[in-house]
């Protein structure tokens, strides 16, 4: 028999204390097969076990209402092969959706970041950018009609990044890609003309960047260690134009920003998620006053809730609104955001509201993506080699 002193250790990953939220799918039987939550449940969840580790996943733009395409960055540990794979997903609202692989492309090393952007010239051929551990960024066009993934070009040139590229982001028009790395370099890849890259900044390793997101055609925000956020403006070269440093932890514990999102209609507000379940919004107009939505310092802020204690791996603004609560959004509030975490939570957090848990898993949820064209559909990759597809009513 186990001693009581060991009991707390079992809270690692599972079993989680049963949360009162009735919407939480806590069905342990979900592990092995595709199965739907009972029909009375408003949220449908389907698990699709894979035989490979999912490093990243994204929805591809819709071509028709019937078939949906997704792209996966996978890693097969048995053969040590990283792959990019496009799949068709039979309608996620069906009782048992299934993934059918469509085309694959071998990647030189594991993918750290995957971004998709609709191609302005050819809507059926969205642009895919993938950053690798070996320090390259690969560009593909995914031909949805013919079901192929065509390699366009890559930037593994000398001096691009040394070591892993930790984050990339494609500009809205798909013409520029910004990349950051642990080596402290910030580079811009031009996709339209010369397909080369331009160094924006090199901190010579004094700062390690972890994530990046465009704010406007000229500005972007990078995330770094110590909950640091830097705002850059291409028109003002030489360094970041604004710096943000956390001031709520009181110096006790600092963390890493793992993911950033900026809403296209509110370009001055930057949403960041990172260590210790921290999610905060940084308004570049008031750089000293971050709004903490979740995390360690929330005790001083009764409106924020700490749902998660471990790393938040991804944040995205959630532009899905349920018909019932459409009125409650005020312009001064931070828009609702979806998060996924190391301790297996996929949830929507909103300023001053109780968080809504969509999924509580015994393993980490590494990444997720909200379908921009149909925001009721969300998919996420689970650490234990599977994908979950969530359809909200």
């Amino acid at each position, binding site marked *: 028999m186990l001693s009581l002193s060991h*009991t707390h250790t079992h809270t690692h990953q599972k079993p989680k204390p049963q949360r009162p939220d009735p919407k939480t799918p806590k069905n342990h039987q979900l592990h092995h097969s595709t199965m739907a939550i009972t029909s009375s449940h408003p949220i449908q969840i389907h698990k699709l076990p894979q*035989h490979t580790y999912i490093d990243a996943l994204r929805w591809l733009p819709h071509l028709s209402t019937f078939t949906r395409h997704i792209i996966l960055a996978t890693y097969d540990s048995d053969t040590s092969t990283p792959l990019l794979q496009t799949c068709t997903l039979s309608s996620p609202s069906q009782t048992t959706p299934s993934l059918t692989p469509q085309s694959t492309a071998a990647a030189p090393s594991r993918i750290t970041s995957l971004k998709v952007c609709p191609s302005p010239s050819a809507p059926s051929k969205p642009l895919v950018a993938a950053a690798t551990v070996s320090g390259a960024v690969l560009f593909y066009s995914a031909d949805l009609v013919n079901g192929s993934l065509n390699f366009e070009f890559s930037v593994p040139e000398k001096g691009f990044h040394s*070591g892993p590229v930790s984050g990339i982001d494609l500009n809205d028009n798909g013409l520029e890609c910004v990349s950051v790395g642990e080596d402290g370099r910030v580079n811009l890849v031009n996709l339209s003309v010369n397909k080369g890259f331009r160094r924006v900044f090199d901190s010579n390793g004094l700062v390690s960047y972890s994530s990046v997101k465009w704010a406007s055609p000229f500005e972007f925000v990078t995330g770094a260690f110590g909950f640091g956020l830097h705002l850059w403006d291409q028109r003002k070269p030489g360094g970041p134009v604004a710096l943000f440093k956390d001031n709520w932890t009181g110096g006790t*514990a600092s963390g890493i920003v793992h993911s950033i999102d900026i809403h296209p209609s509110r370009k001055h507000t930057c949403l960041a998620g990172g260590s210790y379940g921290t999610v905060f919004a940084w308004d570049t107009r008031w750089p000293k006053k971050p709004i903490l939505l979740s995390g360690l310092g929330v005790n001083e802020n009764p409106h924020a809730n700490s749902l998660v204690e471990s790393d938040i791996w991804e944040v995205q603004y959630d532009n899905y609104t349920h018909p019932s609560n459409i009125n409650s959004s005020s312009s001064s509030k931070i828009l609702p955001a979806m998060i996924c975490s190391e301790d297996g939570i996929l949830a929507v957090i909103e300023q001053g509201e109780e968080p809504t848990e969509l999924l509580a898993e015994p393993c980490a949820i590494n990444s997720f993506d909200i379908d921009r064209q149909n925001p009721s559909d969300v998919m996420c990759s689970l650490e234990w080699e599977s994908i979950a597809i969530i359809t909200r009513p």
Partner: protein
Amino acid sequence: MPGMTSDAGEFGSLSVVPHSLDAQAARVYPLRTHRATPPFARLSISWARGNTLRVTLLQSDDAVSEQSVGGEVVEVKLAEADGGEISDARWRRIAYGSVAPFALLQSRKSSIDSFHYEKDWWEHVMDYSKEISSLLGNSKSSATPMIEDPKTVLRAVEEPTSVKAAWELLEMFYADKQSQTWIPERLLDWLADFDCLFSGTQPTVHSKLVAFQKELVTIQAVENHPEYWEVISSALAIGWLDVVVKLLRLHGSYMYDQLGSREIENGLVEAVALLISQMPRLRPDLPTEKLGECYNTKPEFMKAWEKWRGQITKLDCSAFWLQCDHQQTRVGLKNMLQIMLGNASLLSNVTCHWMELYISHFLYIRPFTVGLESMYSLAEKCMHLKPISNRHKLMGLALGILEENTEVVLAECSRSFGPWMITHALELLTAGSAQAENLLHEEQSKLGGICIEELHRLTYAQILSSHALTWNIAPIYLTSCMKQGMGLLENLLYNQPVQHHQVLLKSIEICRLNGLDRVSDDIMKIAGVHYWKHGKKGSAVFWLQQAQDDVRLNRIAKHLFDFVGKSVSDESFKQWEGMIELLGTESKTAGGLEFLKKYRDFRRSLQQVQDGITTDNARKAAEALISLMRNPSTPQQFWLPLLYDSLKLLNWKESPLLNVSETNILLNKLQELSLAKLLPGFVASDLPSDALKSVRLALATNLGRAFLLD
């Protein structure tokens, strides 16, 4: 196995379970290199994670040119020759899925109080067992076809695994207290699900049926074929009543055109089919597609059984048999009646291996067998009647269970089904038998003071640790080990590669969840030093700060200052901004790096002085200078550059910015500096040669003006 060859025979005779030590044929693993090409000058082999070898290939010197690489490291995964019943990916899925039920059971175990322990415990164990069992595959087919083909007597189901069969067997005997009263029927169900597993090594009723079903499509009048009656009798003997009735209905006398001429024959077939479908069963319920009538209590069942047997005897003695013209039908049906009446020699003839015979005995001869002792003696008898040439692993396990020999069950589990099986099955064993619990929880001195349960958990955790995707679930099992668990968990965490950012964060998270703050700090220190070595100074400082490692922060501070000192222009200082932001507020550990922040502030105010020319600003800058020079953490190599940069302050026209004592401090520093020049290890600044002279002059002038002002 080394050291075992000489006395292998003796070892074999002593072992509880025979263990074959066959020499396996050598396997060849091709090395797939990407860049390096043969010939190779040197080759070194070492173990990587798990059963992976890391092979380093080094090219000979003359083969190395500008374009080619000097060598390459390839990893070779040593795999089992046969893939095994379950693929690696499927095993991983099982491993993932079993974490939650296992952890839940452990936490229940530690929270349950001793009063409720006996009473409700097996229900928790059953929950656990059902969940684990569901991971191992579905034994029942999920969808029933809308239109059933009458000639499909056996429905095609997903091939079951022997792991699942073993698990169900253990569950039946150890965990499921509810089924204790009707174990023979449970065994019958079990064999119905898993008889096909034995087909690989010996003939089975299942394989007979499968073969017959293939023929069935081409056969016209089935009743004329001896195999038909043979298969029917076999299926009846092991209680697959639905199959038997289905087969009987294929009898030619049911054909519309023949019904008239073969009325009596058909009546007999139907009478047998009816009797079969009315067979009393000592069990609470039956799945809908199965036949028989259930009786929950023994007296009720006994009554029904006697009545049923009476009906059989009556039919057996019926005069209609004489009017049955079809000889095969008459013989076949009569045989079936004999089987139902429990004719032992007939049962032995129609069954294939001892387990089938065993089931037929339960069904037709000794339906009231209870208790493992009598079950075991019956099993021995059946084995004697049907000796086996090739003992299947499941038979070994079943015998061990019936024999109530925990050691054999353990050995069979671990030998045939691996560490996952034994680790998880121990929960069933301990729940099911006090003897097993004592054996498993007793501390064994020959195992270094740990118990058998812990030993198996540690072994399983070791296997999980050896794979990059499963190492992070090993802590669940390690933390359930009282003696060695935490130590091995620390080892595991220290062995994780810190250079992979994700793995590093995962390790720290595991430390957090298990309260291993010290290990966490150590890992962060290791990471800090790793990043420092690889030029990622920012990450290094971050991790060392997180670990509150003042010693190392101070040491790297010296190197960082060298770096600053050499490129101390305003432009290059911009890249330091991010680093200084990282150092954060005063309360945080920054070690000697605190200087950087002060230096930055000083430079800022100095910048303002150069931009505008207010005395207020200048005064502030001078204050910053004094505080920097007073601070013992300010490195010596910065003293002169600092003073040289502040010449404008020292020569401030409107009034002296420094008073006498402050000026004296600065002069003393200069004095110290000129003495330090003589010591080894002095870092000379790359300032103009007259820098010292001009600073000294400025200070002297300032001193004079300050005297006057006083």
